[in-house]
């Protein structure tokens, strides 16, 4: 696919920006891929938590159960001071989505890539990162090793940082969240640094 046929910057910008905001409005969750992927890596615990949540999905039942548990744990004793904490400003983040919904999200991303290819007349099957990669990094089987290593760093780093280029880069920066701004600066800076080194030849 030639570089000339990619979308102009303003089209991509408008679309990605719209998706970022639209996603929040539609499902009340910050846009992000790493966290979603991480749930499936930790599948057993996620399934367990989802099972428990489903058992008490009825609001009234949950409240009633809480009241009962309160009596059981604290008896009828009330601590002397009960100054209420300020309620955090209206919590608009939705509860953790179902795993199935998140699976569809990830599947959708894959399908999106496929759709783009099909519309342009054919899969990129067999084409790797390309000749550029072979020139800049390495070719043949060693490329696979570097991809694995690079991927591991990506997975490790995004999980530690709590987000990736969509979670921190797009959503977090647009909301001016401090963690996201710093994370984005960090990963962008590192990527630029390594790329310049690779370009300049090791």
């Amino acid at each position, binding site marked *: 696919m030639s570089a000339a046929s990619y979308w102009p910057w303003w089209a991509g910008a408008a679309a990605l920006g719209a998706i970022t905001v639209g996603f929040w409005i539609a*499902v009340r969750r910050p846009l992000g891929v790493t966290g979603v992927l991480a749930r499936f890596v930790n599948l057993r615990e996620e399934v367990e938590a989802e099972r428990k949540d489903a058992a008490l999905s009825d609001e009234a039942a949950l409240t009633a159960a809480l009241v009962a548990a309160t009596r059981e744990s604290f008896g009828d004793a009330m601590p002397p001071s009960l100054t209420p904490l300020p309620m955090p400003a209206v919590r608009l983040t939705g509860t953790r989505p179902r795993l199935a919904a998140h699976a569809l999200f990830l599947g959708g991303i894959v399908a999106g890539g496929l759709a783009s*290819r099909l519309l342009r007349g054919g899969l990129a099957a067999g084409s790797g990162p390309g000749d*550029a990669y072979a020139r800049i990094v390495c070719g043949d089987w060693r490329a696979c090793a570097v991809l694995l290593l690079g991927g591991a760093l990506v997975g490790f780093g995004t999980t530690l940082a709590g987000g990736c280029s969509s979670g921190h880069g797009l959503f977090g920066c647009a909301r001016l969240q401090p963690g996201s701004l710093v994370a984005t600066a960090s990963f962008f800076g590192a990527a630029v640094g390594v790329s310049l080194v690779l370009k300049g030849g090791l």
Partner: protein
Amino acid sequence: MARAPFLRFGLFGLALGFVLSEAGFSDYAELHRMFTFQDLRLLATFAGAVAVAMAGFALLCRGDVLPGRPIHRGTVPGGVLFGIGWALCGACPAIALVQLGEGRGPALASAAGIGGGIWAAQLLRRRWRWDAGSCG
């Protein structure tokens, strides 16, 4: 969320994957050109997207509050490692998925690496607990 929002998640995933592919984010050469400032198109796309989102939030989501995302122990080290990996394999988690959809075989290696990296980081997080600002 009332009634399982499966359709919304699927559609937004589709849109995201499609746009990332059409914009050229899944092309290693394009990304490399962005990171070395040889071609500013992708950079402008990214920065422009943040600007559009910022405007969108200001116009449409006035008063919405999010749990804070503070800077924590993993923010900078995680970010740096992620950036290094991105420059090496040309994929962030979203892009790796797009590449798989495009049929790029080598993306399997990137994706496998990402999965392994996530797993390792989760193990680490359990040993070295820290507050990342929110619950689940």
